């Protein structure tokens, strides 16, 4: 089996803080991390490999420093990694990103399964997975919370929805995006980290592809950011004081006045 995992480098939001003076996000010294959802994608690929044998490719589009992130993926038992990096890829929205990733995937070729994270925590769009599947012309299932079985080229899985779960079946090749519930990612081993340091990351630039420039980067992106702003959260806070009894009474009063309860 050949599995491709799409991995994005994102700013570690643990540290997102607002500068009170300028009201902008403080970005100094924010470490870049593997998009948290993609760590579940990597882990799931590794579990399939351990169960039934597979070769895992890590694929990313991003700035040159994303190589380090791909190295981290290798330390987590991803076999090979490819980075699409070029100024011509920059400024891509989800449509252009999907196109660029599809170029990498065609280079890797002959895949059975593509695994994405549910969404990237910087843009929060959850669009690249389905859009990529559509670009490649393959089936997709989003929000997969469990792979039940892969047998004779058919995958059974659970998808989490607003109403509960759905048990679904799909013929491979297909693309899935995974949620956190699917597994608990492992930490890299010392051996894995050593191996990753020497591993070769394949770098793909525009010139290495036969891409249509009009579909890439800013040019290939139908959506444009017109402006950005920091939302204001001005709220009236009331810390309810008093004895425990008094606090509870006041809170009950608040809830009674705000809650629209059945039969009241």
């Amino acid at each position: 089996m050949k599995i491709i995992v799409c991995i994005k480098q994102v700013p570690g939001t643990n540290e997102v803080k607002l500068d009170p003076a300028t009201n902008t996000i403080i970005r100094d010294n924010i470490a870049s991390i593997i998009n948290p959802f993609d760590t579940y994608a990597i882990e799931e690929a590794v579990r399939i490999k351990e169960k039934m044998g597979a070769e895992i490719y890590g694929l990313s589009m991003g700035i040159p420093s994303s190589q380090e992130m791909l190295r981290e993926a290798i330390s987590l038992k991803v076999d090979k990694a490819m980075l699409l990096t070029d100024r011509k890829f920059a400024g891509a929205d989800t449509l252009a990103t999907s196109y660029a990733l599809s170029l990498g995937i065609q280079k890797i070729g002959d895949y059975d399964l593509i695994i994405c994270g549910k969404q990237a925590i910087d843009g929060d769009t959850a669009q690249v997975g389905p859009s990529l599947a559509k670009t490649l012309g393959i089936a997709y299932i989003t929000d997969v919370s469990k792979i039940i079985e892969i047998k004779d080229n058919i995958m059974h899985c659970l998808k989490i929805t607003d109403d509960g779960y759905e048990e679904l079946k799909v013929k491979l090749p297909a693309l899935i995006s995974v949620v956190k519930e699917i597994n608990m990612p492992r930490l890299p081993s010392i051996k894995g980290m050593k191996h990753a340091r020497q591993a070769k990351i394949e770098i793909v630039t525009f010139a290495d592809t036969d891409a249509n420039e009009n579909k890439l980067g800013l040019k290939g992106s139908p959506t444009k950011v017109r402006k950005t702003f920091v939302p204001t959260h001005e709220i009236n806070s009331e810390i309810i004081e008093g004895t425990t009894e008094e606090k509870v009474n006041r809170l009950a009063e608040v809830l009674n006045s705000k809650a629209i309860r059945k039969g009241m």
Partner: protein
Amino acid sequence: MASIDIIKEQCIGCKKCVGACPFGAIEIIGKKAEIKDNCTLCGVCVESCKFNAINFEFDVVENVDISNYEGIFVFAEQRYGKLKTVSLELIGKAKSLAQELNTSVTAVLLGHSIDNLSKELIAYGADKVLVMDAPWLNDFNDHVYGEVMVKLIKDYKPEIVLIGATSNGRSLAPHISSSLRTGLTADCTVLDIDKEERLLLQTRPAFGGNLMATIVCENHRPQMSTVRPKVFKPLEPDYSREGIINILPIPTPVERFVEKIKNIDNNETISLADADIIVSVGKGIGSAKNIQLAKDLADVLGGALGASRSVVDSGWIPYSQQIGQTGKTVAPKIYIACGISGAIQHIAGLADIETIVAINIDPDAPIFKVAHYGIVGDCREILPMLIKKIK
């Protein structure tokens, strides 16, 4: 391709652009701005510069003839004959957008045995309903629904397509936008019209809600957004309203790539997505057993039970109830956080909530910064008293 340069002679190193850049891609080096590698060429910085020191060249994009497109489509999501509330919210919003554009709102209804829903859609503001009713449309399916929508959009050429940001909507929309090679903005919370340019201004949170971005789709049609449930209010239904119901001929069934074996519905009577009140528990609740206290409060209030990630990771509550960046985004009217510290990743899941109540033993817990009402105290003691009082 587009390019960006700093005109060094004009730059005075004022740092305005540094603050404006959503990607942290500008640095001041030796009193001059420098564009770093992680610039995405979004162009946001250009306006921030008062000294015209940023030279940004946009691409000339091939022009799609956008004047052929008119009207607003709303995907009327339903499940086994019941409309999702967000679809009605979207029709109400579409109605006001359509007024500004001087055009009409069409609801697109796909499914099986759904005839009674058309009247409801008209009562809530749709001018026209396109109905496709066939057994093979009974179950939602990304590919099948996607292909049908693509065909309808090609035939009717709406300028705007709105889809609820439900789990199905967010999975379906990229299929449609990619097929049509148009733009799609995810999970919008504000929609406006730029009348002059006849453009939809789509505003959405990014970076876990720390930043808002307004996005436009200038040269491609339709302009597509998924829209977060509960941000817009549906209109008062008026069953005497008149509208056109257009029953569409049924095409040959679309081939299914993904087959549904079964639904496993939540036995929770109220889902987190629909709940007006959510009682949510954090690690401070102390034990799996104590969760019953919060459950009881949710029950008396007619609400749903949510949880922080720590509680989910401890196995006390299933992941389907996790709220936050790696869980669900919720928008109830009232959110009661019991023993939740209020980490930024948790707060990221709280969207536009009218009233947040926090009960926490630690007066310095960050949750109090976002709470409208706070009680410093032990939730294990307060919850039982509160339930008694409310009962």
